[in-house]
């Protein structure tokens, strides 16, 4: 069970993040999670939105270079050690994490949602489910 993420290539210059989030705003798209990875010259803005198709269309219409990737939204206890447990589970299964970030959503009191990009979605979902972590579907992402 994975969710769709959009990655937008952006030059590292003033106004780019403002412009890209602006395109989403104009189309009435709500951002559920966001992260920006940057280098000296460029960055990649990754977003999970409430309407991927619409967002993709809006971004492309504004000449953005966008790619789509499937990532995992995993929930964990918002308590000390919650994150470490997820990482430990993945490490034991020999699954590499490319990157991760937290989502804006709050599925329940004291529950955090983490977006994970790993080298194998299937094995990660299996391992995390077995270890008792919750995995959110796209529908669930919208509900909270």
């Amino acid at each position, binding site marked *: 069970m994975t969710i769709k993420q959009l990655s937008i290539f952006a030059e590292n210059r003033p106004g780019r993040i403002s412009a890209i989030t602006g395109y989403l705003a104009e189309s009435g798209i709500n951002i559920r999670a966001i992260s920006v990875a940057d*280098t000296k010259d460029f960055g*990649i803005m990754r977003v999970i939105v409430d309407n991927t198709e619409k967002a993709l269309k809006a971004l492309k219409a504004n*000449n953005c*270079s966008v790619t789509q990737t499937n990532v995992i939204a995993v929930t964990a206890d918002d308590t000390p050690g919650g994150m470490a447990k997820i990482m430990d589970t993945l490490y034991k299964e020999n699954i590499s994490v490319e990157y991760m970030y937290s989502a804006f959503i709050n599925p329940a009191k004291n529950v955090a949602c983490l977006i994970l990009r790993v080298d194998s979605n299937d094995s990660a979902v299996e391992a995390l489910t077995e270890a008792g972590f919750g995995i959110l579907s796209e529908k669930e992402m919208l509900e909270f």
Partner: protein
Amino acid sequence: MAKYWNEEIECMSREDMTALQNEKLVKQVRHVWDNVPYYKKLMKEKGVTPDDIKSIDDLHKLPFLKKDDLRECYPYGLLAVPLKDCVRIQSTSGTTGKRVVAFYTQHDVDLWEDCCARAITAAGGTSEDVCQVAYGYGLFTGGAGLHGGSHKVGCLTLPMSSGNTERQIQFMRDLGSTILCCTPSYAAYIGETLKEMGLTPDDINLKAGIFGAEPWTEEMRQEIEKSLGLKAYDIFGLTETSGPGVAFECCEQNGMHINEDHFIAEIIDPDTGEVLPEGTKGELVFTSLDKEAFPLLRYRTRDICVLSKGKCSCGRTLIKMTKPMGRSDDMLIIKGVNVFPSQIETVLLKDFNATPNYQIVVDRVGNSDTFEIKVELTEDMHTDTIKSIELLEKKLSADIKQILGIKAKITLCEPKSIPRSEGKAVRVIDKRKVYNN
């Protein structure tokens, strides 16, 4: 001090020069016809035979030879003697596509070095001089040509090649170099380094510099003359015609005398191919007159310039060409290396399986060329990770270096961020002012 390397030729009357050229041209055309099937075919297509070429007045009847012909004939297609008679090759940089490989017999090497000896002599060089050759050695004609010319003149020759600038200056000081041969941008760089080292032109002994292989302006000449305390002379040539020394500057420093006993120059309209009268700006075309291995008839240089006859105050009667004023094709000379946008397109096509929008930006910062390639990154070119983009950038950078021989700064940019003009992206932005127009 000898003023001329070969006074008889350099100061020959127009009648005698024409007679000499007539005689040599007839022979050269016959030599090509007999030994270069490729050009023979071009002549046949134009309905010309060697019998039609009786003097230089018939030159216009011959077909042009273009860079594309050289490419098509690579490597041996234009060779006019058996390979065993050749003693040398020289080549332009680059590994594919537009590379030119020229062949030389011993006679050709002698002829070429003789041309360079004339240039060194015109710059005031004699056997008393210490000549520091800081052109690149190797396949590039700059090092080999001036090195050979310097030997002929009898100068103490310092085969430095380019680079290692502090060492260049140290040799200059220790051995009292009086003549410097290199590209103008490298000369300017040596001048800057000299200053950075806390030295002045008084600390070195240079009196003349012979600078070529790339376009340069009068402003640059003045700057170099000031920073190195010498007189700067231009020299012209191309690998196709043997190398530097096809034309050289004299004490007047206002145009280069063409070695007309070896090369006939014509100016043509680049669009129609029509020969233009003396004094008109157009594309320079060279015909070799006595080359054995790699004779070229009516070779289009793509350099735009003006020719002028008439006796020069230096006493030479050899026709003069202005510094090139531009190009009639899209070739750029960056850091002394010939670069065609199509070469960059080839790399992009290979690395991306498609030609993305790109733009070449060339500038001159201080006296060094900067070379940037901007590429619009489309969605099929990247993934969601920084790593994938950095790998792409690295690969592109390495491939460009491999194909062109020089490094480019790769800048990945967003789609549609390169300005379009009438819907088409502007491929080349050359901010340098390398031509005096």
